[in-house]
């Protein structure tokens, strides 16, 4: 057995636990939303449950990320890219901003604050404001508050 094979074996041993304890790639949270929807010549108060997903679950540690906002039927309302994120004081808190412009008339922003696990970067809660303009001419602004994390 060559030293390369031994080294490879050691690397496999080291790698396996690291993979199993890694942050899940994608995490979802239940969330509640309240605000106003403007559509079809009507301004309507909205109160609904949402599903919020982050492409990289260790949100607080990610420079680039994607936030998906889905309705209760898991239909995507908007998929936004992270524009900015920073930690605030005390440790385990921060603020982030996500935006979307798909070039087809769907434009949205989400800005808010979060709390996170200081060791893993996983969000424990977040809240923020979602402004969206849709290609069909409807638009809305919602205050979103996270609920529990969903294991999928």
């Amino acid at each position, binding site marked *: 057995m060559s030293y390369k094979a031994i080294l490879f074996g050691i690397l496999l041993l080291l790698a396996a636990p690291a993979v199993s304890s890694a942050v899940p790639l994608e995490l979802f949270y239940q969330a509640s939303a309240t605000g*106003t929807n*403007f559509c079809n*010549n*009507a*301004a309507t108060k909205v109160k609904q449950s949402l599903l919020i997903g982050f492409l990289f679950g260790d949100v607080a540690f990610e420079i680039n990320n994607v936030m998906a906002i889905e309705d209760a039927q898991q239909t995507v309302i908007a998929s936004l890219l992270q*524009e*900015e994120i*920073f*930690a*605030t*004081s005390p440790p385990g808190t921060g*603020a982030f*901003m996500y*935006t979307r*412009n798909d070039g087809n*008339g769907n*434009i*949205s*922003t*989400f*800005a808010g*604050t979060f709390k996170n696990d200081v060791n893993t970067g996983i969000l424990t809660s977040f809240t*923020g*404001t979602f*402004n*969206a*303009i849709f290609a069909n*001419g*409807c*638009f*809305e*602004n919602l205050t979103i508050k996270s609920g529990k994390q969903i294991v999928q």
Partner: protein
Amino acid sequence: MSYKAILLGILIFLAIPSAAAAQVIFQATFSGTEFCHSAVTKIKGTVFITFSAGGMLITKDPQLKDVISVMLINESFETSTTAGAFSFSDIDAGNFGIFTGTFKDNGDQVTGFTGNFGAIFSDGCFQTVTIKSGKIIAQ
């Protein structure tokens, strides 16, 4: 330079003189949250807003020179004979913002409005504020 940047430049050029010359300028209050320099801060203050046929200009001063955002209209519709809702967006290389809100009008022009403005600026700071129109300071 993208075509959007050129378009924005033209709009700024067109919007500011016309607003100063003939358009209604609202003094408005804003309150909300600013996220900047690793701090989350409650903010409150006054801005000045004017509307043109194609957009909305938000400035820090009544002379409309210290520009916060030049926004293009996305949608506007009537919800009654004297009220409606509208949305604007500011998309250029440095800034990205959306304003959505409701307005009152007299059939000829907007007489008052309120809405939510969410934006990120070229320095990385971002904010969400509620803007409410106050008195008309120029017409």
